[in-house]
């Protein structure tokens, strides 16, 4: 019964979204307040229906109702409850339902929290959002219905792919989708602005918190995904430039650019068409990511069930949304009036440079991801693009970006003096040189790459700190007044400081893990010890243990330093009988500066086991830094100006002025 209600709710949501995409749009065009007012209740109703469907499916997973084909194929009654629930989005149908659930959640959020928006803009935003919802609901109902029944009902389900059965991964897709789908709001605002023919600082201020929220979620989602591959794939690696990883990284890069260009629109009323284009591209890349992952046009380690028919459908949706948006852009964008001019050396110029480098970086990743596909289509040749390509193309783009990241915030708006800004950064220069020299002195001349990486990280970290110090007049005034200034600093400024500092920490982590990872692969018998990076790992025993739905070969290891025991390590190799699959349980001991990482492999048949032992210096900083970046986003999101009432929109036509005053 609950399943039928879920299915029915999904159909109702489709009907509501059909109304929501037409009625408010007509109302806004005609200036009919009654029709315009449809947008809010429709968005909320659509959300409630989709939520009903989503929780119906969750219920089916929770009670292991194998009469649903989707549950039977992706769950089993032996799973712990958490993994039963996360099974909802471990498969194509369920994850698409999560996708529209989050889409509707954002729509409802705009309806509820968007009180300060002019009614016509809100109606258009929600209308465009309903168009996206309509397409994806149709997609679910026609090609990927999670409520399809199965008869006869099997006694047990086929289970979940063991490597997906993980606490971190349970929350990774929702986070990622919050990011992907969150960018749909920026997209809808961009389309609404194109329809209205009007982009101004007030618009930028409305769109920014949504972009920021999506960005925080995406940052967290990507970091979680990378962390997951670090501790479950058992390889010591944390990023593989795999098409599916790239699919999440491209919207992040362009979304980061959007976040910065929206500042320029808000503060200086310029770079408008560019910002609109970025908003369209960011969400389009999210859609392209969905297409790449779901259609099977690319081969990837993240093998999702793929189906060409679904691929064609998603491609049609992509064509309608991105194609439609870009057509509208070509038609309406030339009419948007540009705002203030600025000199190349200025805050605007710095942010523009940031934008150019970030979009170029995204284009590089895009090329690397899609080149194999297009070469095949055009020349019928097959190639694989691997990490060497990205090392040669992506890294050289990031270096100037990181250098500029410390300088940009020091420049004033409109017209700046580069030499003056650089002279403020003298401490950062010293720190950079010191970092490089220390690394070379300790690690030797061969670590020149690592020295450059850590020097860059130091430059960015100290540069960011100097900027903050200057804002609060540290060193110039008594401490009490410094504290007062720090308290009064807008949250968005603190947000930037956190995020930029977080980036510096990430860079240090990436550098350390690339340059100094040590790895030993040995055939070990119980009783033997192995040395790695000044630590000793002693293998005491190997036992068979029983988990909730798996059996495992588990090693008892002790981690010793100078003869004293620091930690016990229990890497295991798990076997899942229901799914007939295996997964690696990595043992990691971290001190937040470096990780000792141990994996047990196959037995050699003579009492020994293949052991892989890694020393991964600075790796924890990658996620620590990413957490700082997301935190920076959240702090900035809490800025007063996003919460306090409506920013006054400059009254342009006289007729509008009455509406403005009435709000």
């Amino acid at each position, binding site marked *: 019964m609950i399943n039928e209600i879920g299915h029915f709710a999904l159909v109702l949501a489709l009907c509501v979204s059909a109304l929501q995409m037409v009625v408010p749009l007509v109302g806004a065009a005609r200036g009919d307040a009654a029709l315009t007012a449809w947008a809010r209740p429709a968005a909320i109703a659509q959300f409630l229906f989709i939520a009903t469907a989503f929780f119906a499916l969750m219920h089916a997973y929770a009670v292991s109702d194998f009469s649903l084909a989707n549950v039977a194929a992706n769950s089993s009654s032996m799973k712990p409850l958490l993994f039963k629930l996360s099974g909802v989005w471990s498969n194509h149908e369920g994850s698409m339902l999560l996708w529209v659930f989050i889409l509707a959640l954002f729509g409802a959020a705009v309806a509820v929290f968007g009180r300060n928006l002019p009614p016509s803009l809100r109606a258009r935003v929600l209308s465009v959002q309903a168009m996206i919802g309509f397409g994806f609901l149709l997609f679910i109902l026609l090609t990927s219905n999670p409520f399809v029944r199965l008869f006869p009902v099997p006694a047990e389900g086929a289970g979940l792919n063991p490597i997906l059965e993980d606490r971190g991964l349970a929350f990774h897709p929702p986070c990622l989708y919050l990011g992907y789908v969150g960018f749909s709001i920026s997209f809808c605002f961009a389309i609404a602005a194109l329809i209205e023919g009007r982009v101004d600082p007030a618009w930028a201020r409305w769109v920014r918190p949504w972009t920021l929220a999506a960005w925080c979620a995406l940052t967290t989602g990507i970091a979680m995904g990378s962390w997951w591959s670090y501790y479950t794939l058992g390889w010591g690696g944390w990023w593989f430039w795999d098409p599916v990883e790239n699919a999440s990284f491209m919207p992040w890069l362009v979304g980061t650019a959007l976040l910065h260009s929206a500042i320029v629109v808000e503060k200086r009323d310029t770079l408008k068409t560019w910002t609109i284009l970025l908003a369209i591209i960011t969400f389009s890349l999210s859609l392209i990511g969905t297409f790449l992952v779901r259609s099977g046009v690319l081969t*990837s380690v993240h093998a999702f069930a793929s189906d060409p028919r679904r691929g*064609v459908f998603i491609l049609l949706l992509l064509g309608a949304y991105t194609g439609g948006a870009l057509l509208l852009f*070509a038609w309406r964008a030339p009419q948007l009036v540009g705002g203030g001019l600025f000199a190349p050396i200025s805050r605007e110029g710095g942010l523009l440079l940031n934008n150019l480098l970030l979009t170029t970086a995204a284009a590089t990743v895009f090329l690397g991801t899609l080149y194999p596909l297009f070469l095949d289509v055009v020349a019928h040749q097959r190639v694989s693009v691997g990490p060497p390509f990205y090392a040669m193309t992506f890294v050289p783009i990031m270096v100037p970006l990181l250098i500029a990241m410390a300088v940009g915030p020091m420049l004033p708006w409109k017209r700046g003096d580069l030499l003056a800004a650089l002279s403020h950064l003298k401490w950062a220069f010293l720190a950079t040189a010191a970092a490089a020299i220390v690394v070379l002195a300790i690690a030797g001349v061969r670590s020149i790459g690592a020295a450059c990486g850590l020097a860059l990280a130091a430059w960015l970290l100290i540069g960011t700190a100097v900027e903050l110090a200057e804002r609060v007049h540290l060193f110039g005034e008594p401490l009490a007044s410094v504290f007062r200034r720090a308290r009064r600093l807008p949250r968005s400024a603190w947000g930037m400081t956190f995020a930029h500092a977080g980036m510096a920490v990430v860079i240090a982590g990436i550098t350390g893990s690339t340059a100094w990872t040590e790895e030993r692969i040995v055939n070990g018998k119980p009783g033997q010890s192995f040395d790695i990076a000044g630590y000793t790992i002693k293998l005491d025993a190997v036992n068979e243990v029983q988990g909730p739905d798996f059996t495992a070969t588990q090693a008892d290891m002790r981690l010793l330093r100078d003869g004293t025991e620091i930690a016990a390590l229990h890497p295991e190799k798990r076997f899942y009988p229901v799914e007939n699959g295996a997964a690696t349980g990595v043992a990691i001991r971290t001190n937040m500066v470096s990780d000792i990482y141990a994996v047990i492999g196959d037995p050699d048949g003579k009492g020994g086991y293949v052991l892989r032992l890694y020393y991964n210096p600075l790796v924890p900083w990658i996620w620590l830094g990413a957490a700082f970046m997301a935190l920076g986003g959240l702090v900035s999101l809490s800025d007063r100006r996003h919460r306090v009432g409506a920013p006054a929109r400059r009254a342009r036509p006289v007729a509008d002025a009455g509406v403005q005053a009435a709000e």
Partner: protein
Amino acid sequence: MARRGWLYVVPIVVFALLAGGFYVGLGRDTMVLPSPLIDKPAPQFSLPPLAEGESGFSTSDLRGHVSLVNTFASWCAPCRAEHPVLNHLARSSGVAIYGIDYKDKPDAARAWIAALGNPYVRIGADDGRVGIDWGVYGVPETFIVDRTGRIRYKHVGPLTEDDVTATILPLLAKLGR
């Protein structure tokens, strides 16, 4: 400010090309690729081993029995997806699988083998030249060589269990290893 209207049309044109490419890409079969080498003798080559002291891989190894030649690299994500299939094939069918480690660092390849298991009888380290002789476009690719040393089949992209049961095993049976 002079308006350069055509600039605003660029995004939609680029997107149209992209979408066209996607559409054509969707229809294609990712796994079939004709090779001019089919039914020709395998090229002459001699590859060094991944580690000193092990034996390398050369043309003469392929004589006298039906074998599978698989190109792979530790940097190649699809190869990682394919690897369990090869392990299973080697264990269940007993066919001799030879590996060509394509444009890879020997250390990385050794670590990869140690981690994921070794389905190969012998592995040769190739800097790319032997791959050209075999007509390798990208990794992974898998060839079936008969007992006279002729290439009889080429599979592009990762092998799946379905490929193995539908194509590889019947062909191996036909060639009568």
